[in-house]
């Protein structure tokens, strides 16, 4: 993408407390290669005293190739953080370490997990997918036969509907961004359109739902509207170019773009075509959103519009005052992200962030914003708008609408307080 260069010698402040025009970084990089620096920058780091040394790794042959690469040993701190239900090891969640990642693709080994009874050890040669119920022909597929079907690939996010609920607590939890918002990930998913398989089975006229079931020890089961199944649902076989990881449904999973994560049934083994929803435990007693009057919203499938600043974020520490780049992710179950605005003064003033290409429907979108931190306290926020026009709500507005016990679909604006000391903490603003 070609953007016009920002030509003013001083980057334009576009909102309160030091937010700069979203193209300011282009100017900065241009300026630094020339003679002129940015006027607001503080003193450069002290000049190096010792003569440069040639590092020892240039003086010996390097390591050999490997069959499957792994991250640098210096990156061992980049881990999913996980917690299990009491008395179990396999029920619970692990969270994507958003504070360590950039771009929009989540490395497969860092994709968040939510399991209801662990990861089954499936033999792909013995795994079968059954489609039955209101169909002309009940059909069974194996992995080899599915691999001959037409494949489609899309970069799309997956989010657990419980993501963000930590901020329903009365006091803001002082944890990393991943501990609050790390149940969202984004991958290049490749699979067979479910519509092709349903077409082959011959769906009966009265069919309105499918009921998808996993081959895990919870036999995890959700009902999905037929309209969604025929629209953009796929049987995913590949994630980021390789076969699905076991913790993401190997050898096959349902993938429902934009819908709450638990409906994209992992280790998919069975689809029953039905006239009505099955009202399973997961779609009645769990994954329903309790309202203040004691009733609950059911079948709130689509994930709302949301964004979060990942840098700087909770627990990180600023260095000296000066120029920083605010970076974050935005997404919506309704389609593309149209706009992300950023505030550095707790929502008093806003400016539009730059969206990094590609801006894809139902995908994470990376946004970035130059910010001149003057060393004083600041409250950083981001607010996303999607192509349907939906705007991410404040926490106050969300709670006014849904109370504090809804548990799922928490998409409120996240606020980070940068203190004068440079610490970053979670605040409700």
């Amino acid at each position: 993408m070609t953007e016009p260069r920002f030509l003013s010698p001083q980057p334009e402040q576009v909102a309160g407390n030091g937010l700069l025009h979203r193209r300011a970084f282009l100017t900065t990089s241009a300026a630094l290669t020339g003679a002129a620096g940015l006027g607001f920058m503080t003193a450069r780091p002290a000049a190096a005293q010792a003569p440069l040394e040639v590092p020892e790794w240039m003086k010996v042959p390097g390591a050999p190739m490997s069959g499957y690469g792994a991250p640098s040993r210096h990156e061992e701190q980049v881990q999913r953080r996980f917690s299990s239900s009491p008395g179990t090891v396999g029920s619970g969640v692990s969270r994507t370490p958003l504070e360590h990642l950039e771009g929009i693709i989540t490395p497969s080994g860092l994709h968040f997990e939510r399991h209801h009874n662990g990861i089954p050890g499936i033999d792909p040669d013995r795994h079968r997918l059954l489609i039955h119920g209101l169909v002309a022909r009940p059909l069974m597929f194996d992995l080899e036969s599915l691999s001959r079907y037409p494949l489609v690939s899309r970069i799309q996010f997956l989010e657990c509907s419980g993501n963000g609920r930590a901020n329903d607590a009365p006091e803001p939890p002082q944890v990393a961004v991943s501990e609050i918002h790390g149940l969202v990930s984004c991958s290049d998913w490749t699979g067979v359109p479910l519509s092709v398989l349903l077409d082959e089975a011959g769906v009966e006229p009265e069919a309105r739902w499918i009921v998808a079931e996993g081959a895990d020890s919870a036999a995890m089961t959700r009902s999905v509207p037929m309209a969604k199944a025929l629209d953009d649902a796929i049987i995913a076989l590949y994630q980021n170019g390789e076969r699905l990881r076991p913790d993401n449904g190997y050898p096959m999973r349902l993938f429902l773009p934009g819908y709450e994560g638990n409906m994209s049934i992992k280790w998919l083994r069975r689809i029953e075509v039905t006239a009505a929803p099955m009202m399973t435990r997961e779609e009645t007693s769990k994954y329903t959103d309790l309202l203040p009057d004691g009733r609950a919203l059911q079948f709130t499938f689509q994930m709302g519009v949301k964004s979060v600043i990942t840098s700087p974020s909770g627990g990180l520490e600023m260095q000296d005052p000066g120029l920083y780049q605010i970076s974050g992710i935005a997404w919506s179950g309704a389609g593309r992200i149209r706009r992300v605005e950023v505030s550095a003064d707790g929502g008093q003033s806003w400016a539009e962030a730059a969206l990094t290409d590609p801006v894809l429907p139902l995908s994470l979108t990376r946004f970035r914003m130059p910010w001149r931190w003057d060393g004083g306290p600041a409250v950083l926020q981001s607010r996303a708008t999607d192509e349907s026009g939906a705007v991410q709500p404040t926490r106050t507005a969300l709670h006014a609408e849904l109370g504090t016990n809804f548990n799922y679909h928490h998409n409120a604006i996240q606020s980070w307080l940068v203190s004068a000391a440079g610490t970053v903490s979670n605040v409700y603003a």
Partner: protein
Amino acid sequence: MLGAVAAQGVVALCMAWPGTLTAQEGPGLGVELTVEQIAAWDINVAPDGAGLPPGSGNARQGAEVFAVKCIACHSTDGEGGLNDPLVGGHGSLNGPEPLRTVGSYWPYAPTVFDYIRRAMPYALPQSLTDDETYALTAYVLQLNGIIGEDDVMDAASLPLVEMPNRDGFILAWPPTEER
């Protein structure tokens, strides 16, 4: 004959959801199965009781199974220990600390059977007999005061059980304009 039925299905599909079918065609590698072949995998139980198997049990029998296979996680009388409480919470849903249990929250009794059969006990799922599953379902319902100790739960009686929170849900799908 089969082809004709299939063609009807496809036509109906196109009429119901115009424009959503992909133009793509598969190689037709699905292997056709009979209902008998599918039976062992077909464990869904609908809220109206469709799919419930033969068998029966009551709360007294369920209490005996519970004491051996469930008590470690759900504690005595289903109060909840390591894991979810199964009883209580009545009247709590609109308060500050709602307790969502089978008694206070679940809208359909057959779902209890469905879930126990497919996923419990946690350490040994799909190991219970259908009689044991009916008995445990009866016990959990009885602990919540929904049925009596001697009420027999089977494919005929379980769907008739009226759950206290049956009308507690507002359907967000289909979207209002499509209803």
